């Protein structure tokens, strides 16, 4: 069996062949996975294959999501919301697992499959939904970056410029695997909310009791419903579906890797839910002290928490919001570029050089640049966008979810991996739950 160095040399020898750059890199990664499997090196196999699920889940713990959890914890405490948030992550695993199978079996992104199986009209509509929600979400990521940086007295323009530079510099390696590891390294900082929660000295009996709560403290209200809906949007969003499937394609996962892809998703959901619950617990200290946090941004939450968790805790909270914005800005802009490339049948891969995939990188950079600049417009109603972006994400989810369900039941595509009846029951339940959440929102806003 050749060593890793041999593989790199052999693949270098492949260069004269008319192989596109991304396929070349992908095969190299596949071969390393193949070797690890042959040698039964389980930990190396896991290390090589995890990534898309982790990034989708930790990326979804973005700035508006963390602010949504912070708002929920500070205004309604942890009762009801703690099990509710964990439930939303279970729903996210059910949804994302389908993209693992689809991506590994078809070597295609979700946007490409929608175009192929449903035609251009539905493909364009799905792409339009995604690009609109992604752009709005990207704006909120920069709002989060600015809010987190404000705590450290960093000017908005510098924070936005730094964020844009980081997002655009991430793919400079022209290699998906290197990009993924770099972003994952930053994404693990999302777990900073765990020590912050511990610093708030939560009551363990209260935490235990929260798991069996069926209604929030203070009862149901329109605002509570909006926050609950926002929490669903903080966990299940269209970009995650497109991103994870396209990443699986770009990473080169194949049929034998599906099991690890599932573990990757579960691991990502576990870590992301831990961070979400920790954020909820940390800010519930403000609820106990009856603080009005309805209009708070990231820096204001950090400042309000400082008397209870200390200066270090406050700084970590602000850094957590900043990191959440940075990681999500990276993954969301990449997901937009993937979808654009798949929709217009252009090269869409982080394994490609700039010259080979100009459109792909132009979308990635262009959306980042535009969203960053919007944040710097004086008087722009950013708070409104932050509040409603998660809700819009939930509202645009049902049609995409229906496409996904039809595709994973497509015998021609999935073969023996098509959904079983119980997976369909779970999937339809999730779809119904998301649609119902939208209807409840409509009723709540009309009241």
């Amino acid at each position, binding site marked *: 069996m050749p060593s890793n160095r041999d593989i790199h040399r052999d693949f270098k020898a492949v260069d004269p062949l*008319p192989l*596109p750059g991304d396929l070349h890199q992908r095969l190299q990664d596949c071969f390393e996975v193949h070797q690890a499997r042959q040698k039964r090196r389980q930990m190396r196999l896991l290390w090589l294959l995890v990534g898309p699920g982790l990034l989708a889940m930790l990326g979804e713990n973005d700035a508006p999501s963390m602010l949504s959890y912070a708002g929920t914890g500070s205004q309604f405490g942890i009762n009801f919301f703690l099990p509710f948030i964990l439930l939303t992550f279970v729903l996210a695993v059910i949804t994302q697992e389908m993209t693992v199978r689809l991506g590994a079996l078809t070597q295609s992104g979700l946007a490409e499959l929608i175009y192929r199986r449903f035609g251009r009209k539905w493909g364009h509509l799905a792409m339009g939904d995604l690009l609109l929600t992604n752009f709005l979400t990207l704006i909120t990521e920069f709002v989060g970056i600015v809010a987190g940086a404000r705590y450290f007295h960093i000017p908005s323009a510098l924070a936005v410029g730094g964020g844009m530079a980081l997002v655009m510099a991430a793919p400079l390696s022209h290699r998906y695997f290197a990009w993924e590891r770099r972003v994952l390294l930053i994404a693990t900082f999302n777990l900073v909310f765990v020590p912050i929660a511990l610093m708030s000295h939560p009551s363990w009996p209260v935490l235990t009791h929260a798991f069996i709560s069926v209604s929030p403290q203070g009862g149901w209200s329109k605002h509570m419903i909006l926050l609950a809906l926002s929490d669903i949007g903080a966990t299940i969003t269209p970009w995650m579906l497109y991103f994870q499937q396209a990443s699986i394609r770009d990473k080169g996962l194949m049929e034998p890797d599906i099991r690890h892809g599932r573990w990757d998703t579960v691991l990502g959901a576990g870590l992301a839910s831990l961070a979400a619950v920790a954020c909820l617990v940390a800010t519930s200290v403000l609820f106990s002290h009856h603080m009005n946090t309805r209009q708070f941004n990231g820096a204001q939450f950090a400042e309000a928490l400082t008397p209870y968790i200390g200066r270090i805790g406050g700084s970590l909270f602000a850094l957590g919001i900043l990191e959440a914005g940075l990681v999500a800005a990276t993954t969301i802009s990449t997901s937009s570029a993937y979808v654009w490339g798949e929709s217009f049948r252009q090269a869409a891969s982080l394994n490609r050089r700039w010259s080979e995939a100009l459109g792909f990188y132009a979308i990635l950079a262009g959306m980042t640049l535009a969203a960053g600049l919007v944040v710097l417009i004086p008087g722009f109603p950013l708070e409104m966008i932050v509040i409603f972006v998660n809700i819009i994400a939930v509202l645009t989810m049902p049609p995409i979810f229906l496409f996904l369900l039809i595709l994973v039941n497509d015998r021609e595509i999935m073969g023996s991996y098509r959904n079983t009846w119980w997976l369909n029951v779970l999937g339809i339940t999730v779809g119904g739950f998301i649609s119902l959440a*939208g209807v409840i929102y409509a009723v709540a806003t009309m009241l």
Partner: protein
Amino acid sequence: MTEGTQNGRKDGKEERTDRMPSYHDSQLNSQKPEITKLLEQHQESRRRIESLGLVRLTPGLKWLMWGLRFYVVGMVILVVINVMATLH
């Protein structure tokens, strides 16, 4: 155009070629059967997907798709109205 059939051009545009990259001409074919096998697996998946046409949708599914489309448009309008009302 697919990943396996694209070649980057100097001007950055993609050029369609019908020729799939062939490993059978490669010296590596004899030296690295694993690589060839992986490439073939990948190309087989791509070929299978490229041969697919439009899926046949039942009338019920078509209604559901259009229903959800109207649901999205209606809801987004509702959100925009809500945002405007909140702003004023």
